[in-house]
């Protein structure tokens, strides 16, 4: 069996700021998070600004020829990504219903988001 080096216990926070189907960054951000988690890195996600649009339920991008990002998000707990946070102001701006999101997310105010950034060793902005 191959031994995979545990990445020295560093905590990674992916900060996801783009809507799901406007460009490829949304998908890239989630895939990066999944890859990091697969290598036993502790991964948390923060959906910020337009990134909260990825949490809309009932996404149907089939006609665009895109894979369903909402469905990918629903699989996050299977990949040991348990901590998902979301920008409370953007949730309010876009009227996102947190009880219906593909993955459950904890809303944070700006001071709490600043704290979250400080608790992580690696910050990846998408």
């Amino acid at each position, binding site marked *: 069996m191959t031994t995979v080096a545990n990445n020295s216990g560093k905590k990674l926070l992916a900060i996801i700021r783009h809507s799901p189907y406007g460009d490829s960054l949304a998908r890239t951000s989630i895939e990066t998070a999944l890859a990091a988690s697969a290598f036993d890195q502790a991964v948390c996600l923060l959906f910020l*600004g337009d990134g909260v649009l990825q949490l809309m339920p009932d996404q149907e991008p089939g006609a665009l020829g895109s894979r369903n990002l909402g469905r990918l998000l629903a699989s996050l707990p299977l990949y040991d990504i348990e901590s998902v946070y979301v920008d409370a*102001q953007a949730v309010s701006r876009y009227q996102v219903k947190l009880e219906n999101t593909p993955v459950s997310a904890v809303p944070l105010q700006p001071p709490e988001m*600043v704290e979250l*950034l400080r608790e992580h*060793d690696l*910050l990846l902005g998408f």
Partner: protein
Amino acid sequence: MILHTLNASPASAAFAECLRLLAPGDALLLLGDGVYCALAGTTARAQLDAAGAELYVLHDDVAAAGILGQTAGTSTVDIDGFVALTERFARQLAWY
């Protein structure tokens, strides 16, 4: 403490989101179109000053923008200065 880099203009979502997460003790390096956020006398600049973070601008981008005389109150760095900042701050976050 975090070194933020911003390379988007004051009208961008990246600017607004960076501003919300910028905290006292952090540093912000403005590069590319981000240098326009350093323009003295603008609303964007006043908002950055109020955040209480150290403000840096990348010299070559400020020169290209033609605003070398209009970023008073920020520190101008070259690429070596950028590298020095990355050495001073353990964590870096890119806004673009």
